């Protein structure tokens, strides 16, 4: 009997907790659902915490979807992303990609450029002309003349932290990104670059201001020349399933 009374009491207190306090109001929106993402990939004011997290707002949907899948399936190695996305089906990842692709968010102010004039010149040459002798295409060939990305799979390069870009070059050089997927164009290109070159490019890119007109443009304009597209498995990996 005592037990019955006890259990009844416990249930009662449970009930009191459940009804005595008004539950927090939760908006039925994607913005609310991706709070788990925006804690790090937030608006500018939150990025101050850690300069590393890349901007994902406004990137091409196909690119974001591929990255989400690559993180989840550990082709692109970053443990925190893999843990967060564990078990989420493609469809939800696609919804998330579409949401972030649709965001028009002001770009952060550019990082100060601390490179020497030689380094600036080196970066500018590689970015706009590449180095055909070493089979390095210009960044602008794939990432767009304005470096704002190419639909549907190639990301823009502006508004990213310098340290993030350097880390990605390191990943590609060591095979940490898109491991096992070939051909992997960025890996091939990054392996051709010296540390100085990669560092100069990263510093230059992070220091570019983005005009309001560019940042609010509907979507990246250019399409990719077929010859270049063939070099990149990250591009031919079509949404809709791995085959």
């Amino acid at each position, binding site marked *: 009997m005592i037990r019955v009374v006890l259990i009844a009491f416990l249930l009662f207190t449970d009930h009191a907790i459940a009804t005595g306090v008004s539950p927090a109001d939760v908006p039925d929106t994607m913005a609310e659902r991706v709070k788990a993402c925006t*804690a790090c990939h937030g608006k500018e004011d939150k990025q101050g915490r850690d300069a590393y997290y890349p901007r994902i707002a406004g990137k091409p949907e196909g690119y974001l979807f591929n990255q989400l899948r690559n993180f989840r399936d550990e082709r692109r190695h970053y443990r925190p992303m893999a843990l967060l996305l564990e*078990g989420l*089906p493609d469809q939800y990842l696609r919804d998330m990609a579409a949401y972030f692709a649709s965001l028009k968010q002001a770009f952060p102010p550019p990082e100060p450029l601390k490179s020497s004039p030689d380094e600036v010149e080196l970066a500018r040459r590689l970015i706009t002309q590449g180095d055909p002798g070493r089979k390095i295409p210009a960044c602008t060939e794939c990432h767009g003349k304005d470096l704002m990305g190419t639909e549907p799979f190639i990301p823009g390069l502006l508004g990213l932290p310098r340290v993030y870009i350097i880390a990605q070059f390191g990943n590609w050089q060591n095979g940490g990104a898109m491991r096992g997927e070939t051909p992997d164009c960025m890996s091939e290109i990054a392996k051709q670059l010296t540390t100085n070159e990669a560092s100069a490019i990263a510093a230059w890119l992070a220091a570019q201001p983005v005009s309001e007109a560019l940042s609010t443009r509907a979507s990246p304009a250019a399409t990719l020349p077929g010859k270049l597209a063939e070099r990149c498995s990250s591009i031919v990996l079509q949404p809709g399933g791995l085959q």
Partner: protein
Amino acid sequence: MKLILLAAALAGLIGLGIFMVPVSSSSVPAGVESPPAKTDGITGRQAQQQQQARGAYLAQAGNCMGCHTAQGGRPYAGGHVLDTSIGTFITPNITPDPETGIGLWNEGNFWRALHDGKARDGSPLYPAFPYTEYTKITREDSDAIFAYLQSLPPAQQRNRPNQIRFPFNLRPLIYIWRAIYFEQGVYRADNAKSDEWNRGAYLVQGLGHCNACHTARNPFGASQGELFGGGQLMGSNWYAPSLTSLQEASTSDWAVEDIVELLRTGSSSRAITTGPMADVISQSLQYLTKEDAYAMATYLKSLPETGPRSRGIAPALTEEVDTLLRQGGEIYETHCQDCHGNLGQGAPGAYPALAGNRGITLASPINAIRSILNGGYAPVIASNPRPYGMPPFAQILRDEEVALVLSYIRNAWGNRGTLVTAAQVDRSRKGAQ
């Protein structure tokens, strides 16, 4: 007493493999073992399709896919990594590919694997494949699952070999293990209980292999100790709570409907699932028929309640402790309150309540630490395709801050639990428990 002795002797005999004849279940209709070849073409085909459909349901209820599919990989093609105390297992391909899968198996081979833990060539299987539970599956169900697997598109995929540490890589050792820990035998109905209860017991103990996580394992990987008494998941810092302790995840004081809701959706007004259990819900349990979900709930609710277990000693509220908790409270306000509410009340359907949440005050705080560090999403199910999620705080909070905020949550709004230390958080970050 005599009965217990008899049961023990029987279990011993079975364990030693003296009972070599599979115990057949009364629920297996006659003629199941022969293929439906005698019937004419159309009904034969219909029967086959029905069997495959039943097998598909059963394979899902047993979550075969959970282990036999790599994240993002081809269904049932294996390659999933299982870290255990004796080494790393890479799950095999069970699609009907003749070279890399089980295309050359027949239903007898498959039955022997499930029921007796033997490979096609007769060698003993490592119990990472839970035949210790699957042995309870009926022959009829085994054949149906096999028929379904054979109907899948064959996937040619050769997986890496297991990496088992010495001396466990010596297969003959498994015979000793089996003699001690393996009791072969199909589930036997308890006639004193209802059909529904028995169906639930069959699903929970056999096909569902809930035991594999919810019972503690000894260093040899055998489930030991109190059945469903809770245990650390091998190779991960998750703790599968006890299904028999009211301080943990016992449902003996729940309404059956609440248990059913939890099993089929991953959350109910009484609790919410996270981590590996959330995967089990989205991959498997959400597809249970209503009848089977009720059967499992009926059985789970009936599990005998165990006595209170050691909870550790909640801190006396000295001034020093009070200061710590207040610091934790400030972190809570900054990072947690938006979603979980100023009184830990949460938001139904989106964010779990932390007040009165048994998962928060478990003696071992590892699940809560993990959730704070890594975040994660509630299970994706058909009726909730876009669940709300929890951000990872590993990059945002230092170990000391995680310890403070969790200590606060474990001791706020009527919760009582031990204080959490920065060292515990650090161990979780490093992947240790």
